[in-house]
């Protein structure tokens, strides 16, 4: 287990490094930070001065390692637009996004795992059909449109929920539903197929041949095995969700990291964008790392070699 953890950790670090390099290179190649920084009215001489002052004229690798070194120390540079530390800015916005993410993944799991299990227990039953319908809908529903429709029908027509802001928990209901419903279909399908697969295994037959009661067979023997891949998927979906929060936060005016991303992209605020990509990626990497550990811990075949 220790060896496995270390190996996995090294991989995670390598992935993080590569991602940071790619995102740095991408933004470096696709724009001239000096122009962005100087603003639209600046003269060529001003731009040149800024370029030299901030070292934008050095080779990309030098700049990258410079940036990386500071990033490792928690310094992601200064925002061109807000004129504050990017790390502080992100740190300020992250809690909202995290709250949203946790609510949404919880909602998604609570919706899709029971539904997936129920669908697998009775294939082709009404429950199975409902589950299939919901997942097909969920996969085809553009989240931005779903969000707007919710606003139009729930907030405005029925006056049930607030439409924007993040003051009360009520403000989180619609964003949670939109974001969660986006992640639910994949989790539901995996739960269903996983359960179906496990239910047809020899060891489930053994459990039934031992006379165990159906709930024990289903929830102890079957679910325990079927849930292992679902854990990984939920972690992956959680990571995707944070990336997807940009759409939802923009629509519901939730001032989280996603909203910040949209603001800084429209304002060409490169250091903030770069910082956000790094933070989101790191988050995904950490998540999948822990998911793998949980996985290994849940599956004795990996845990005990």
């Amino acid at each position, binding site marked *: 287990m220790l060896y496995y953890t270390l190996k996995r950790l090294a*991989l995670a670090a*390598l*992935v*993080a490094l*590569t*991602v940071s390099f*790619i*995102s740095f290179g*991408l*933004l470096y190649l*696709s*724009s001239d930070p000096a122009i962005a920084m100087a603003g639209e009215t600046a003269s060529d001489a001003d731009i040149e001065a800024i370029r030299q002052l901030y070292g934008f004229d050095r080779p990309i690798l030098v700049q990258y390692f410079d940036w990386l070194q500071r990033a490792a120390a928690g310094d992601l540079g200064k925002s061109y637009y807000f004129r504050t530390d990017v790390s502080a800015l992100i740190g300020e916005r992250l809690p909202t996004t995290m709250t949203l993410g946790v609510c949404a993944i919880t909602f998604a799991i609570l919706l899709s795992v029971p539904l997936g299990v129920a669908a697998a227990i009775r294939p082709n039953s009404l429950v199975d059909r409902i589950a299939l319908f919901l997942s*097909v*809908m969920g*996969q*085809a*529903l*553009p*989240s*931005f*449109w779903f969000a*707007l*429709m919710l*606003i*139009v029908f729930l907030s*405005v027509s029925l006056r049930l929920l607030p439409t924007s802001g993040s003051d009360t928990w009520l403000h989180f209901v619609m964003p949670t539903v939109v974001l969660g419903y986006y992640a639910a279909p*994949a989790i539901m*399908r*995996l739960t269903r*197929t996983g359960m179906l697969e496990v239910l047809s295994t020899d060891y489930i037959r053994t459990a039934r041949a031992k006379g165990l009661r159906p709930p024990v067979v289903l929830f102890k023997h079957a679910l325990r095995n079927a849930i292992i891949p679902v854990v990984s998927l939920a972690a*992956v979906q959680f*990571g*995707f969700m*944070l*990336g*997807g929060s*940009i*759409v939802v936060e*923009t629509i519901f005016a939730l001032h989280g990291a996603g909203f910040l*991303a*949209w603001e800084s*992209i*429209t304002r*060409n605020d490169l250091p903030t*964008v770069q910082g*956000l*990509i790094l933070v*989101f*990626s790191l988050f*995904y*990497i950490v998540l*999948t790392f822990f998911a793998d550990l949980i996985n290994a811990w849940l599956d004795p075949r990996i845990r005990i070699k």
Partner: protein
Amino acid sequence: MSSGSTVTTTVTKASIYTRFTGHQGVMIGAFIVLAIVLVALLAPLLAPHDPYQQNLLARLIPPVWDSRGSWDHVLGTDHLGRDYLSRLIYGARISLLIGFGAALISGLIGTVMGVMAGYFGGRVDMVVTFLITVRLSMPVVLVALAVVAIVGGSLQVVITVLGLLLWDRFAVVMRSSTLQIRSMDYVAAAQAVGCSTKRILMTEIMPNVVNNLIVIATLEMAHAIILEAALSFLGLGVQPPLPSWGLMVSEGKDMMLFEAWLITIPGVALFLLVLAINLMGDGVRDITAPENRN
């Protein structure tokens, strides 16, 4: 013997054909997709008006089912007085173009990577698996938005960016399918006989993974269409005055509380197209490889 084998192939072909026609999802999906493709191809013939023609005197006319609507603008007009139906019809071209284009690029990248990883294994596999992990770690929407914002939004840019980002599922699936096929006897036999790698890849591997490729291609097409709509909705995708469905929702957003149809109509179109493509993809998978769900 030869007659016997032809008989069996026609039997399986016929049964696959009936399996397709008997599969509700595929039939419904294919019907809708075909309809939308036809609409897109015949846009100039079908559109009642010029989709770009503004008419400030005829702004925000509701669709015909509303008491204020008229048959002149069946689906009404937008905030600039442009005919909504015509814009919707031309918008289908954009969605389909994005879907095909992005799926083509990402399909090429992902297939090459996946097949190489599956076939050669070892180091190649390690590198490809690593690249897939790296790609999955990058937030797609964020990166796409950032790049499009910097480079400038246009149809070509959006297609290219999405194409360069969405290859991961192709690579994952092609890798595992190739691994599976490679362990089969006939590939080993071909290797033993001394067929060249290129020949084996083209004649033994590709024909056998093509089913999975089609499935992923349809699903990724739908994915790209949704992403484009989201980017355009956020104002960082296809730029006005192009009639992208996502853009139409975005333009209708300000008036949505008064004229909900402004966002309902393009949204439903988008939803239907994506739903139909997904139904086809899921159906093809059910039919050709029911064991490969998820």
